[in-house]
């Protein structure tokens, strides 16, 4: 990730731990935001002084009010602005005069309404800069800090959440209140809770860095509607994950692939904004969630339990069917069912009934009570071949749910391995679920959610523990040639570089091109084909034709002089019929490789994340199969290797069904070379190498076709 220019440090300590607060624009009208925010701070026992500032009230909730903040005789650490947006500039200016360094601007009516709102936001940003004020908002719900040292509810949420070690940062205020309500029902607590609204000054990145060093926060949840600086987000996530070991879970709305349809290249078409976002978040170690429920399912696993050391899961159940469901869910998440040691099996044989299934999943049978769960769970946890345990319970007439829940909690406290539970049902199991939730055992209604949470925790553990990736430098690249070709195209006003020029650029970056030549006549085509050696491919070259197959401008498998002459004529005929206005620059005659796997390599410049590299199964059906993977540049050797392994067709490259393995190492290298090219030459907007022919192991790869869009 690139180094970012450092912005002035934001004063977040006074946002979360102020000694004194002024609420500017409060009133005495119960049920309004200006009133309720002040009262929430008072009622929720803020550990400091709070001053109401109101133009016409003498007091609010029994506390003496000041007309202006500058009238307050004592210093003020934090200003909460609840004035109408039209006068927030005046209020913030007075905050500056008072020497306030931190603010939360709750008021709406800024950038989010467009027009005059944009001017208002620009004005408050300028005032904040003049007085060196850090502020959250505008257009937000506010800030909550459950730490008893502060106990601040500077928000208009109905109730203060309980203390916990999960921090929640949200771009949407309305979502915050829903999340608080959801979390309360599940006994989930928070360390910090921030609605950051328009992020005109303090951004999610600033907040994330603050939380990195916050001893009260163990897990960071992030709800985003837009990613304004993808590079900064990735860097922050990487820093936090690797330096402080705190996982970041992201719920990013807007999963549509807008803009992809208009793309000219295969890569542009496949690399929609959401696909890129998915890849970028994962690349930076973030766990992307698709729903609030999934986000909290993962969050409680990461917050309450130790991280799994590996993917071997044991399942303890009192019912066969749910055990099978949990097994399916486990395997689907690429986890494995643990194989018990002989010692564990021996314990089970001695202590469980003969009818119990002592293999994984361990079925303690429907009449199991707490003692049997204790034995089964303890046995699994002490087994060195087990990395985590799923406890499943269905309520049967003899099932003592309460005792089993207590026993599960007691047993797992003796081991440093994660245990998740699924007490299946609703009414009868409620008492057990309540115990599990209160004692911080992650509970899931569905085994699928449980397995997904385990897989997320394992992903985080593996990301956190991996060694830093070294980004390769290539000294053999010819940037001068690339520069010249790109400049020529730019000066000529061209935005598309046909195959002949694109392959020259790629060859300058050490990506080999098949022997070829440009024929301007039928005789030249025949002579070229004979010199290159049959079989050959012939293709039209034209600035106006991006997809040559669509105009029947490609002839494959030409094996003789006669066929070469016929192909030359046929291409001219086909192109004239399909695109009469296209100027034909010539016919490219190229060596045809018959034994190789066709893959695609591509580049697309994403508006949030910058250059993105794509790899996948190539050929003309690439958009049909969509078997591709993405990484944001720069791409190092490990990431390149992962990109290749991620596609479904990987086994074809690795040597499936008796076929020889292909030269995957060359592909890894070319992915990295392409990444450097994309970073060095930002004018390349889209690039396709399709296909790249991958030969047998040790025999390299060749570009068979390529195009570049500027």
């Amino acid at each position: 990730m690139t180094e970012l220019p450092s912005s002035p440090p934001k004063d977040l300590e006074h946002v979360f731990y102020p000694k004194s607060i002024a609420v500017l624009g409060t009133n005495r009208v119960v049920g309004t935001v200006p009133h309720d925010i002040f009262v929430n701070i008072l009622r929720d026992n803020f550990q400091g002084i709070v001053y109401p500032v109101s133009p016409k009230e003498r007091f609010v909730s029994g506390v003496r009010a000041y007309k202006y903040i500058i009238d307050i005789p004592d210093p003020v650490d934090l200003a909460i602005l609840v004035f109408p947006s039209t006068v927030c500039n005046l209020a913030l200016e007075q905050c500056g005069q008072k020497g306030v360094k931190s603010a939360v601007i709750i008021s709406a009516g800024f950038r989010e309404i467009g027009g005059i709102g944009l001017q208002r936001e620009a004005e408050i940003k300028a005032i904040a800069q003049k007085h060196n004020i850090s502020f959250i908002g505008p257009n937000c719900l506010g800030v909550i800090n459950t730490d008893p040292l502060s106990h601040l509810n500077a928000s208009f949420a109905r109730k203060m959440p309980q203390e916990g070690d999960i921090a929640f940062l949200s771009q949407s205020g309305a979502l915050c209140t829903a999340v608080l309500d959801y979390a309360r029902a599940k006994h989930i607590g928070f360390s910090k809770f921030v609605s950051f609204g328009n992020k005109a000054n303090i951004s999610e990145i600033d907040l994330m860095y603050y939380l990195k060093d916050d001893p009260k926060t163990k897990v960071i949840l992030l709800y985003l509607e837009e990613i304004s600086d993808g590079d900064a987000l990735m860097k922050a996530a990487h820093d936090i994950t690797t330096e402080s070991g705190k996982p970041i879970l992201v719920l990013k709305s807007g999963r549509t692939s807008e803009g992809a349809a208009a793309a000219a290249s295969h890569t542009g078409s496949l690399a929609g904004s959401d696909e890129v976002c998915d890849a970028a978040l994962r690349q930076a170690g973030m766990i992307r969630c698709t729903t609030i429920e999934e986000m909290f399912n993962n969050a409680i696993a990461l917050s309450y339990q130790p991280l799994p050391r590996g993917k071997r899961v044991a399942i303890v159940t009192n019912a066969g069917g749910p055990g099978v469901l949990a097994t399916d869910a486990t395997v689907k998440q690429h986890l494995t069912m643990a194989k018990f040691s002989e010692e564990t099996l021996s314990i089970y044989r001695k202590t469980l009934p003969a009818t119990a299934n002592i293999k994984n999943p361990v079925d303690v049978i429907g009449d199991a009570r707490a003692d049997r769960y204790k034995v089964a769970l303890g046995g699994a946890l002490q087994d060195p071949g087990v990395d985590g345990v799923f406890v499943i319970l269905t309520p049967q007439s003899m099932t003592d749910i309460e005792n089993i829940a207590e026993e599960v909690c007691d047993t797992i406290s003796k081991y440093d391995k994660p245990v998740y539970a699924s007490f299946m049902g609703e009414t009868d199991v409620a008492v057990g679920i309540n115990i599990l939730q209160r004692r911080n055992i992650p509970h899931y209604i569905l085994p699928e959610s449980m397995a997904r949470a385990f897989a997320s925790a394992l992903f985080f553990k593996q990301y956190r523990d991996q060694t830093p990736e070294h980004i390769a430098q290539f000294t053999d690249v010819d940037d001068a040639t690339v520069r010249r070709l790109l400049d020529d195209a730019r000066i000529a006003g061209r935005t598309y570089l046909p195959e002949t020029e694109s392959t020259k650029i790629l060859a300058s970056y050490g990506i080999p091109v098949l022997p070829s030549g440009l024929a301007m006549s039928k005789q030249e085509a025949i002579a070229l084909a004979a010199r290159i050696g049959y079989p050959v491919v012939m293709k039209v070259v034209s600035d106006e034709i991006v997809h040559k197959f669509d105009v029947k401008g490609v002839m494959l498998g030409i094996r003789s002089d006669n066929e070469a002459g016929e192909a030359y004529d046929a291409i001219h005929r086909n192109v004239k019929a399909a695109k009469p206005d296209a100027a034909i620059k010539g016919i490219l005659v190229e060596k045809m490789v018959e034994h190789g796997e066709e893959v695609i390599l591509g580049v697309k410049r994403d508006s949030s994340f910058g250059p993105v590299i794509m790899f996948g199964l190539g050929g003309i059906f690439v958009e049909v199969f969509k078997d591709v993977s993405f990484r944001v540049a720069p791409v190092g050797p490990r990431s390149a290797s992962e990109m290749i392994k991620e596609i479904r067709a990987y086994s074809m490259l690795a040597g499936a069904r008796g076929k020889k393995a292909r030269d995957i190492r060359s592909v890894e290298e070319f992915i990295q070379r392409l990444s450097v090219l994309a970073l060095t030459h930002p004018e390349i907007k889209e690039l396709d190498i399709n296909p790249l022919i991958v030969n047998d192991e040790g025999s390299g790869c060749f570009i068979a076709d390529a195009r570049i869009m500027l």
Partner: protein
Amino acid sequence: MEKSEIKARVEKVIAIVLKVDPSEITPTANFAFDLGADSMQSLELIAAFEEEFDIEMDEQKAREVQTVEAAVDFIAGYLK
């Protein structure tokens, strides 16, 4: 109508609608920031001015008026 009369009648309306002491109604006083008008009271003020001066104001433009002296000038524009 003389500007001084408009000013006096504007101040009277403000004192009634916003329930503020007349001494606080200075020419540069901002309706929201200095006199505590919320969004509902701002609309009430516009309606009260229209009734007081028997005029019909452009509501969008009237909402942009923020101070007492600006209100006097704005209303005077309708009374020419």
